[in-house]
Every structure is written in structure tokens, then in C-alpha cells.
């Protein structure tokens, strides 16, 4: 039996940075259990959330991700004892920074999904996909990619004239 499938005008790209011990295994479990969720998520596997550098999140947005998910072991379950605790602080600070820069935090989701939580993985992936789908594409970083240094900000009449004078 196939569920009714809607066609959406926009399908977001979601990048998921996950640890191998908990969330990756949780996503595997979702598969073993044949749970269904939107096909928008692309998983990048790490040993531990402690390995996930904020730069990766930035890079993902720059390279066209519309939403980013970071997920690892629940506190106390870290295979490496404390990696997720360090990650928790790092990302608390990083998301505050992104927020201050003006990135809509609805595009960035953090979660703890254990190896036993196939259902939670589906829930988190679905929720983020649907939310970002409703928000539309992440234009901000993509626009930056296409812009050039002089594209707009310094906009004096003299410069404009000079610019236009270029044959």
C-alpha cells in the first residue's frame, strides 16, 4: 500500500550531520523497521557530535542546504563519554551567533536520537523537512555566493556613473 504522495513545488535539501553510534544507527533502525519519511535528508556520518565543526554547518548552507540537522547521542550515552557535552556547548554558542547574524534558526535543528529511536529519527527528519519546505529555499547564503564585491552596498552616484561608464 502506498501512501498518498503530494507533489510540492519546492523540495528542500536537508543535510544531517550525525554521530555513527547513536543517530546513524537510529536512522538505520528506521530503515529496518521500514518507517517512511521524506527523501530530502542527506546524511554525513561522524564518529561523534564532538567532531562536528560549526564550519561544516556554514559550508552546508553555502553549498545550498536549506536546512541542517545535527544529531547525536543523548547526554550520558556518548560512546566517547563527553563528546556530545562539548558539542552541546559549542552549538549553543554557534546558534546564538547565527541568530545574531540573521540566520533563521528554524532551518537549523539539533536533536538527540539514540540507536533505539528509529521513530524519533523519522519524526525529526520529517518535521525539519516540512518546516523548511514551508519556509522556502534558503536564499541568503546562495545569494551571497552569486554576488560580487561591488554589487550594491557601496552605491554612490559617482561610483554608479563610473560603473556604467565601463564599456
Amino acid at each position, binding site marked *: 500500500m502506498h501512501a498518498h504522495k503530494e507533489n510540492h513545488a519546492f523540495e528542500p535539501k536537508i543535510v544531517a550531520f550525525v554521530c555513527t553510534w547513536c543517530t546513524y544507527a537510529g536512522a538505520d533502525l528506521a530503515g529496518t523497521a521500514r518507517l517512511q519519511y521524506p527523501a530530502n535528508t542527506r546524511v554525513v556520518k561522524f564518529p561523534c557530535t564532538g567532531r562536528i565543526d560549526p564550519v561544516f554547518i556554514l559550508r552546508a548552507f553555502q553549498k545550498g542546504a536549506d536546512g541542517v540537522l545535527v544529531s547525536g547521542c543523548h547526554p550520558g550515552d556518548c560512546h566517547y563519554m563527553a563528546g556530545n557535552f562539548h558539542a552541546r556547548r559549542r552549538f549553543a554558542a554557534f546558534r546564538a551567533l547565527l541568530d545574531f547574524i540573521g540566520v533563521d534558526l528554524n532551518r537549523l535543528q539539533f536533536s538527540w536520537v539514540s540507536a533505539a529511536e528509529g521513530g524519533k529519527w523519522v519524526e525529526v527528519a520529517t518535521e525539519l523537512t516540512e518546516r523548511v519546505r514551508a519556509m522556502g529555499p534558503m536564499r541568503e547564503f546562495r545569494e551571497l555566493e552569486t554576488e560580487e*564585491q561591488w554589487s550594491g552596498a557601496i552605491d554612490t552616484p559617482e561610483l554608479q556613473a563610473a560603473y556604467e561608464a565601463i564599456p
Partner: protein
Amino acid sequence: MTNTAQTIDPALYAAVTDAIRAEAKKVLEAGAAAAVVGWQAGRRQGTAMPAIITDPAKVAELIFSPACVNNLALYLSKAKKEIRARGRIAIVVKGCDLKALVGLMGENQLKREDLHVIGVVCAGVQRAGAAKDIPLSEETIAGKCRECTVHTPEGADVTVGTLPDLPHFTPVESEELSRLEAMTPAQRWSFWKEHFARCIRCYACRQVCPFCYCEQCLCDRNRPQAVETTPRPAGNMAWHIVRAMHLAGRCAGCAECERVCPMDIPLNLLNRKMAKELKELYGHEAGFEVKEKGPLAQYREDDDQSFIK
């Protein structure tokens, strides 16, 4: 803002200058330090620049004035590395500079016993581009000094000067921070986008920062290239985000990055914001005591995780 008491009495700076010279002479003569890092008069009237004095006869070159804006901690972390090899160094610091020294000690870059710290009581320094040789006032004082909490450095080997009564200044930096915080994300994005678009990637901000002492900056690497190096908006945005993130929990707010920025990008706003967040989240304030672990190098099992599903 109407009466004449709205300026800072320059007598403080003269008194501090004398005291710095006396202390520098004392430590150089006694051999307690191989060199004194301080400020001397700049070539142009009313300016100042960093100085390294090794000869006790030349201590009279040292000065302290509202033009002594440079954070000299820089000269112990990465610039002028050769002077560290000479032995124990005396360094003149304002309260804000001392916070950088303290941070560097926590990061294994300096040892307290290798330094003779001459703390100066500072009522404030000039903002970039202010008229020289007039007493500091609402018009000429640097933004960071308006809401300074460390006029008197704590924990120096000697501290010279007495703080005069200070006029009330408008806290422009925190007002600006509040203004930004009240905006919508989209408004903030366009604010920063506009500012960062102007960045020419001269890296003066990096060069002047006492904490940017990496041998090779992540942002100069090309395998992989995490941050685009050409001065285009995308790379600029990434550079400033990475910079703010790397300074989070470490930056002590000397605001040198902002002072040296030729494009007038309000960089200290980012630093202030991160400092504020880390204080609210983990009660951390940089630069007040030598801490083995910064806020992002440690954790508590009950740290806030309300943002994690």
C-alpha cells in the same frame, strides 16, 4: 551633556606617564625585566605608538595618553616574538589589555612569572579619527571606554594612577547591541550583509587580535578550503562568522579589531554578543582570572539543552 565636567581631566595621564617611567627605570635597572613594552609618542602630534624600551636611559620616551589605544598584549602573543626570547618582559597594560594577557595565560601562551605587569589606571582612550590633544569627551572617547568596567587593572605587579571622577557617557555599544537584538533575523541579515560586503579581507582585524595567534589560520587553508579567501560576499560572511566563533569565550573586548578596520565594520558588536551569550549560558566572563578551561572547552552535565529536540 551640557556642562564642562563632561570631559576627563588629563592630569591622570600625565601622572601615569611619570609613574610608568619610574617603574620602567626601576625594573630595567634592577634587571627585573629585559625590556619594557609600552607606548611612546607617535610621529604626528598627539598620537602614540607601541614602544619597546631596553635601555633604562630611554624610559623618558614612554608615555600614557588618550592616544595609547594599542593593546600591547599583542606584542607578547605573536608580534615581535623575538623580544620574548630576551627573558622577563615588563608590559604596560590598561585594564582591557590585561584581560587579554589573562586570557593568553589560560591558553598556555604566556606564563605569569615571565611577565612584570605594569597596570595603568585608564579613564579611556580616543575613538578612531577623533581630534587629538583635546580632553576626552562624549565626542572623542572610544566606544568601548564608555562602558568600561576595568578602569583599574586587577592583579598587575604594580598599578599606577588614581581614577578621577568620570562623566557619564552614553553606552553606545550596548545600545547598538540591543538595537540589533530587537530586529528580525531578516533585518539583522541585511545589516551584516551590507557591512560584510564592504570587507576587503585585509585581515587587519586578525593581525591586531592578541588571540589570533595561530601559526596558520583555518581561513588561509586550501585543503580543504573552509572559507573562500577572495573578498567576495560569501567568503566575507564566512570569515566573520568563523572569526567570531573562534573568539567566543576568549575575546576580552579590547575592540582593537574594530579600531583597525579600514572599512568601519562594527566587529566588536559580534564579540560583545558572544561574550554576553556565554555569560548568560555558562556564567563565563573572559579575562578576569586565569582559567584552565574556557567555556567551550568544558561542560556541565546539566547545561542548557532547551534548543535540542
